[in-house]
């Protein structure tokens, strides 16, 4: 390959993993990693979970590893335009980088509530600065409102309660985690939040949000009003596609990539939260995932394909959430499931298997304390990847090792 080098836009999990994977695969040319934050690359999952340790930012890799691996890390720099015909990327500082292959790992940006700007009292969560600002609102005598019963909202609610903050969480849908988590487990999580003292309002529509010096007032469609010191908006994220879209790359709920993570330009790849991709295990259905493991695995596969391999990305979607001492793990996509089989590991740990009409395992969701459900979810992931139709009685019986069904 002869050779203008490899350029990676975005220094989150996907971008960093790709940079190191290029070296692990023996690539000798230049590797440039561009991150628009002023920090070393850091892990985002702890930002909504860490509790007392939130001040400690966990780096993805130690600083010296960039020099050791010969990776040029451009920190606090933004790529502003891309010219695919010239293989050129323009940085905000004025520099133009040329590339042999380019990886877009630009991530996603939190969705804002329409018409409401962030302020000292209205927050979203993506960066370490966002996390610090939210944490400052988690005082023992404080009251924090959280809009959105997704993972970010629920994890922050758990963190707030741990720090003694009064929490009101509202969700427009009839229950939390409507997307991707079965009702039974979502309701179990809801019950735990209520038991921990969270004021939980589901199925409520917001009419007004008023941001003033003395706090935030949220008015609901039914006339109720809630006042809080601050509000966190946790209503999802939008993929960062501007650079790709302006360069004419195909966009479809994110930067559209094929099963090798190549965009509509064969010299440009995309990985992580910013891209949508076909999932082999589900008939090539196109999805976009915002998950830590997906970002890592796609970064790794993208690096291989930037070097000319034709490695398909065929991982089964997997994600987790920590709330209080509970961990939720989900493997697979349950859309299309026609039946569910439950497996009770203990009074506090349960797994639900989702099967289609042919008995094929599509997804498994588990909730339990600590690592209680992890092993079975991991094995379920393997069963899903292999397209198996496991015996329902065996799935339901906790004394049958799932490993024996592989």
């Amino acid at each position: 390959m002869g050779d203008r080098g490899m350029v990676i836009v975005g220094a989150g999990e996907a971008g960093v993993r790709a940079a190191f994977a290029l070296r692990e695969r023996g690539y000798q040319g230049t590797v440039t990693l561009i991150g628009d934050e002023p920090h070393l690359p850091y892990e985002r999952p702890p930002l909504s979970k860490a509790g007392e340790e939130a001040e400690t930012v966990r780096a993805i890799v130690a600083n010296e590893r960039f020099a050791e691996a010969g990776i040029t890390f451009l920190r606090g720099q933004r790529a502003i335009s891309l010219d695919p015909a010239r293989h050129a990327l323009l940085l905000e500082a004025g520099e133009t980088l040329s590339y042999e292959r380019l990886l877009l790992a630009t991530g996603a940006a939190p969705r804002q509530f329409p018409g409401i700007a962030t302020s000292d009292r209205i927050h979203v969560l993506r960066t370490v600065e966002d996390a610090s600002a939210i944490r400052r609102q988690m005082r023992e005598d404080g009251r924090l409102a959280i809009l959105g019963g997704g993972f970010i909202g629920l994890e922050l609610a758990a963190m707030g309660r741990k720090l003694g903050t009064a929490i009101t969480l509202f969700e427009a849908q009839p229950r939390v985690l409507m997307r991707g988590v079965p009702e039974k487990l979502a309701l179990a999580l809801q019950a735990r939040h209520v038991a921990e003292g969270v004021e939980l309002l589901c199925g409520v529509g917001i009419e007004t949000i008023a941001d003033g010096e003395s706090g935030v007032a949220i008015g609901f469609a039914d006339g109720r009003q809630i006042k809080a010191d601050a509000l966190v908006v946790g209503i999802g994220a939008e993929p960062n596609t501007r650079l790709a879209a302006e360069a004419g790359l195909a966009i479809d709920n994110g930067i559209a990539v094929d099963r090798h993570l190549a965009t509509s330009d064969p010299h440009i790849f995309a990985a992580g939260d910013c891209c949508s991709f076909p999932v082999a295990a589900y008939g090539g259905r196109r999805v976009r995932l915002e998950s830590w493991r997906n970002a890592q695995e796609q970064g790794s596969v993208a690096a291989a394909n930037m070097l000319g391999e034709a490695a398909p990305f065929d991982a089964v979607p997997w994600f987790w959430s920590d709330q209080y001492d509970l961990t939720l793990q989900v493997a697979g996509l349950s859309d299309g499931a026609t039946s569910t089989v439950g497996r009770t590991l203990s009074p506090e740990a349960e797994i639900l298997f989702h099967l289609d009409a042919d008995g094929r395992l599509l997804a498994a969701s588990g909730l339990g304390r600590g690592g209680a459900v992890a092993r079975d979810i991991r094995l379920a992931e393997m069963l899903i990847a292999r397209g198996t139709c496991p015996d329902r009685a065996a799935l339901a019986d906790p004394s049958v090792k799932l490993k024996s069904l592989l």
Partner: protein
Amino acid sequence: MSIWIDVCDKDEIDEEDVIRFDHDGKSYAVYRSPEDSFHATDGHCTHENVHLADGLVMDDIIECPKHNGRFNYKTGQAKGAPVCVNLKTYAVKVDGGRVFIQVG
């Protein structure tokens, strides 16, 4: 001085599986390989404070239950992202049907 600590009966660990063992304020993971050999490592993953006994053993590999970091439990070697720090391993012997690990 190294001492041998009695962990359990060998049949308390299934083949290709792992159990947690706590002793003197420390926690260990004790493994039985598919070839019926026994091994021991520190109990917690080097990436985050998660116990490996909840993880999955496949051949020589223990996979962390949290983030799927992989280690060779026989050597302690970290097998790549997200784990980069090796696990400490401990000598194990089986005597009279009991499993012992050497600590200290």
